[in-house]
């Protein structure tokens, strides 16, 4: 079955004076219909940029994007308009993504108005349906965004993204700004919607625990490149790249058995994507380097079926 969305060696660069910030540096992923790809990485690794580039909110600087088999890489705004009905986005800041001057009903109706869909009455009916779907009562249709809590605001954003019946939604850290107890609610809602409507997600997060439940596939991103990629089952069961393993260990575990742990930390911070070192980009923080890591950039190699890793030490783990 052909994937719904596919990127081939996608690139997005930001020139900074004489130097270039390679935010997305050759990313190839695919997402099937009804599937969720969890994209995980620290702030500054390029994951948000990737999400926006896929939606053509940013212009790609290289590589290709295929949606439903069609090459949309170089389509201009006008040509993209019909595709926009099928690809949507949910943002990290629940309040910031809602126009403070518009009522909730008008916000959700916006995509319908933009594409001139239905009569006023029909649109209102659809908005009420969407409010039901995301768990906000219809009586709030004339309320304003600031009257709601973060979790509710995020639901409104989801309702808006669903208005045009999209096939694909980029979820850009949709729960990072929410309380832990509300995070579970929103993830639950997104899963429910996926089951009902068969929508595919690119779920972006900085915490692997957040994507563990909802993802079919996982991609771990570091400084513009993917370092580990494949079936979520395989990656969570058998993480191979040192970065992936460090990310997993960074998530605090509740000491159910009474054994409190020391917090494990990955040393250092994500370096700037401007002055990339020669060789593997993870070298500054990796605890298991060898000489070759400073010389050559590793490539994604298949270590088991549907599980790819980009690391020179991979041979050690294979088999």
């Amino acid at each position: 079955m052909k994937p719904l969305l596919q990127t081939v060696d996608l690139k997005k660069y930001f020139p900074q004076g004489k130097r270039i910030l390679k935010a997305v540096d050759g990313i190839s992923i695919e997402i099937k219909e009804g599937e969720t790809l969890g994209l995980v990485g620290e702030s500054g690794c390029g994951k948000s940029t990737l999400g926006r580039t896929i939606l053509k909110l940013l212009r790609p600087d290289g590589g290709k994007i295929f949606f439903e088999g069609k090459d949309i890489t170089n389509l201009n705004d006008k040509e993209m308009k019909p595709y926009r009905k099928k690809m949507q986005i949910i943002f990290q800041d629940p309040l910031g993504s809602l126009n403070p001057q518009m009522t909730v009903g008008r916000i959700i109706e916006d995509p319908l108005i933009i594409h001139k869909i239905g009569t006023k009455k029909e649109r209102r009916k659809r908005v009420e349906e969407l409010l039901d779907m995301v768990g906000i009562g219809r009586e709030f249709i004339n309320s304003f965004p600031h009257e709601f809590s973060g979790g509710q605001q995020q639901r409104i954003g989801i309702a808006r993204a669903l208005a045009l019946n999209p096939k694909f939604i980029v979820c850009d850290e949709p729960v990072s700004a929410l309380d832990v107890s509300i995070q579970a609610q929103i993830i639950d809602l997104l899963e429910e919607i996926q089951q009902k409507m068969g929508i595919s997600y690119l779920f972006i997060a900085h915490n692997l625990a957040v994507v563990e439940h909802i993802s079919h596939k996982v991609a771990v991103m570091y400084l513009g490149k993917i370092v580990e990629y494949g079936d979520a089952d395989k990656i969570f069961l058998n993480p191979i790249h040192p970065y992936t393993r460090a990310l997993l260990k960074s998530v605090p575990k509740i000491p159910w058995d009474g054994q409190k742990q020391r917090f494990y930390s990955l040393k250092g911070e994500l370096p700037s994507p401007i002055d990339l070192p020669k060789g593997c980009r993870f070298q500054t923080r990796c605890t298991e380097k060898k000489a070759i890591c400073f010389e050559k950039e590793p490539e994604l190699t298949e270590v088991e079926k549907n599980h790819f890793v980009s690391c020179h030490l991979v041979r050690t783990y294979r088999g």
Partner: protein
Amino acid sequence: MLRKNKTESIGYWKAFWLRFKKNKMAVIGGVFVLILIALAILAPYIAPYPYDEPHYIRAFEGPSKDFIFGTDALGRDLFSRILYSLRNACIIGFGSQFVVLIIGGILGAVAGFKGGWIDKFIMSIVDIMFAFPTFLFNVILVTALGRGLFTIFLAIGLTGWAGMARLVRGQVLYLKNSEFVEAAKAAGASTFYIIRKHILPNMIGPILVNLAFGVPGAMMTESGLAVIGMGVRPPMPSWGNLIGEGIGMMMAFPHLLIFPAVTFAFTLISFTFLADGLRDAFNPRSEIS
């Protein structure tokens, strides 16, 4: 399922009104401004005398039954003249701000949207405007354009748009990059739609506040011009004129200074309190207990 809690939902404008109401100074200012505007509009009908009708026999009289505020050197009714000053000041105040809005608003919006060299170019003009001695510029313009009401408020508007341009540009830049605009783009909205539906409505608040402060500012500028003889042509009265004359006669006929000065100050304060209150009321964080 979220069910409505029993509070009424407070919309943006209702919340604004509630905050505004709580600021006593602002409400008082607002009420007075409304009264003043009404007086200004009705001046021709309620002024007891035409502003230029002399009564030479009754010159330099203090307040009396016939002349509430007294008379000036030519026996003209001070009260009527003050009423007309108020009228002219309002015309100039509001007129100039209209000019400021058009020029500053358009230039600021273009700069904010287009960015690049257009932005740099417009902003350097703005910088120059700020560096310029505005008053001098006003004098030059009035000399060139003439001393009518229209030309004066045009001149004040032409010298005073820089602040509005900066404000509008800042608002546009901020809103352009906000996520709800991105969401509209992701939904397929055209730039025009985004400007109309998403950006403009969000700019009204700060712009209104800027204009509200601009009105008393323009009034003061005109009175400054009048004091040096560049205001509206006599016999048309202006607060600046009246105060200027009054200062000359201060010792002998204090009423000629007191009434114009007090009424002018009162007007300025009312507008300023109103503008102040608007600014606080638009800011959702200024919770007043």
